[in-house]
């Protein structure tokens, strides 16, 4: 347990009648970190965020904010602010009035409000837009104004509900970098909800992976990627290969065993060699032939049908090859090798 964590969930549940949107979740968010909640739709991540904000009421458990129990406080009494998925800018107010809204409610003097609004607009790199109306802004601009509106109140925790979902790819990638940079400058704890695992891996200090109302695993991006604790995490975070039972046993060298087992190996950890190549110490190998080639510019994805049965996906950086040579590989017999330490045997989910 870290001293003075920003948010603590103690056995939090949120039920809607029969449906357990959040089921006995306990977790900690550390002071100042960029914490992501990742999972598919309906996994409970957004509900957890809304529980912190105060828009949903707990069915069970407690939520602590820097040690104080906020479970019963309405949202306007909590020193947290939210960036909404649809930005929720007030259409009848100017950009400046939007940003200053929280300050206006707290009766902060107009001169100070103006100054802080300007500071915020500089922070999100949209100086001089204070007099515009939200309808005159682009999606990316609105997103930044929503961020400014939340941050100007110096919240203890900033909640972001899939804020980049509506942006196109390039803009999204740009915003990811900017958000990270703002986080570092401002130093506030960020809690970020997303279903995009690449986004979570890019930006987060730590990630909580949600599934059906529960947390499957919490860890740093590297931990989750390299040491997934379950099939779900391995499959959800990054692309993964799963090899079961007989084939698995054959590869691992104990073909006599009957036990059900699954291991996972990341596609980029596998090397493609010619058939018959020597297999080094500490490596696993499997023979097969290339059944599918997908050229992706940066890298090429090969789908290899194993002689033992099943398939493995291999991703290779296009260091030397061109699309033509890659595509010509279709049908070629190959030997796949990878280091044993990259192999992860995982517990099966029941």
């Amino acid at each position, binding site marked *: 347990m870290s001293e003075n964590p920003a948010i603590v969930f103690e056995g939090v549940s949120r039920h809607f009648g029969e449906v357990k949107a959040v089921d006995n979740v306990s977790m900690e968010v550390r002071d100042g970190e960029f914490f992501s909640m990742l999972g598919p739709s309906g996994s409970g991540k957004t509900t957890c965020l809304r529980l912190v904000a105060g828009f949903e*009421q707990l069915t069970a458990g407690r939520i602590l904010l820097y040690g104080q129990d906020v479970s*019963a406080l*309405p949202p306007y*009494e909590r*020193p947290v602010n939210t960036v909404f998925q649809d930005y929720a800018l007030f259409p009848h107010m100017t950009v400046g009035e939007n940003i200053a809204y929280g300050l206006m409610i707290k*009766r902060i003097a107009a001169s100070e409000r103006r100054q802080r609004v300007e500071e915020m607009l500089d922070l999100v790199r949209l100086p001089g837009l204070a007099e515009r109306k939200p309808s005159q802004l682009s999606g990316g601009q609105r997103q930044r104004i929503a961020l400014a509106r939340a941050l100007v109140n110096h919240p203890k925790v900033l909640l972001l509900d899939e804020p980049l979902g509506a942006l196109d790819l390039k803009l999204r990638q740009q915003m990811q970098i900017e958000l990270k940079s703002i986080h570092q400058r401002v*130093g*506030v704890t960020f809690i970020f909800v997303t279903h995009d695992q690449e986004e979570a891996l890019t930006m987060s200090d730590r990630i909580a992976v949600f599934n059906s109302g529960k947390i499957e695993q919490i860890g740093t991006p590297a931990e989750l990627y390299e040491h997934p604790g379950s099939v779900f995490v391995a499959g959800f975070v990054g692309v993964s290969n799963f090899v079961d039972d007989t084939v698995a046993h054959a590869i691992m060298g104990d073909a006599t065993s009957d036990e059900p087992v699954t291991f996972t190996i990341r596609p980029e950890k596998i090397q493609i060699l010619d058939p018959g190549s020597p297999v080094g110490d500490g490596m696993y190998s499997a023979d097969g032939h290339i059944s599918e080639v997908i050229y992706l510019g940066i890298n090429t994805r090969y789908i290899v049908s194993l002689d033992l049965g099943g398939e493995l996906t291999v991703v290779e950086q296009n260091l030397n090859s061109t699309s033509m040579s890659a595509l010509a590989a279709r049908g070629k017999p190959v030997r796949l090798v990878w280091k044993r330490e990259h192999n992860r045997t995982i517990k099966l989910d029941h």
Partner: protein
Amino acid sequence: MQKTEIPMRPTATQSSLWRSVSNYLYYRPRLVLVLLLGPPLLFMLVVYVGSLGSLLVNSFFYLDGFTGKIVRHFTLQTYAELFVPSNLDIFKRTIAMAIAVTVADALIAFPLAHYMAKYASPRRKSLIYLAVLIPLWSSYLVRVYAWRLILAKEGILTWFIGKVGLLGALEWILSLPGIGGTSLGLSPIGMFIAFTYVWLPFMIIPIQTALERVPRSLEEASADLGAKPFQTFRNVILPLSFPGVVAGSIFTFSLTLGDFVVPLSLGNSKLFIGMAVLSHQGTSGNIPLAAAFTMGPVVIMIIYLLIARRTGAFDAL
């Protein structure tokens, strides 16, 4: 930029009484619902539904012809009176008129609504909208009476018909039983024209709204699949905008069923439901009969509404 420490609770510069009430209500949505819904519901239930209820009750009483007093015992006698041929005629007459007016209004309104929804530029549409709404907001009574003016023997329409030499045709129409009368201004056909006129905007607006909601992409898809414009209209646009027609018809039907102004201004002395109600509750004080008469249109409209709900007309309102 440093993190500024802000206190956990906002300093109470705003009224803490309002805050406390807000906090109390925030997690009690049911209480809020009661507070919000209470006053209007109370008003409507007591004033409106209550009165309708007492009207229904009244229709089961009857007026003693000798004493002139209302006898407050449950009886179906008053309803039985409705089935007297002369009263049945009143119902038939009114319902026939309501149907005719509804059909006429639908036919006239649809092209205009179609034009507004699909072909008019936004500016033109606003102008047309105004041109539709403005007659609505001039006095209803006077608009009815305008037709008395127009249809009068010495009025503009007869003058015009005379000018184009169709007086003979007019005489012939007026001689037809059931539609004609002594003059245009005092005949069922005159009433028909007036009814159609006054309720027309009520038909135009829902149809226009419903047509607007038919996405252009559906029409394009239909054309893409080989349908000619008329087929697209018949198979795509018409069915999808039908709820709008039904919504409009609720008004034209209901308003015609209960009206007494048009029959009084432009009718021959044949009674319509509205006039019957007015006269029975007036001088003779026969509230039970007036109530029974009123229950007719009420029941008809409630059934109509329930059917209309199924067609989705309510979304077009």
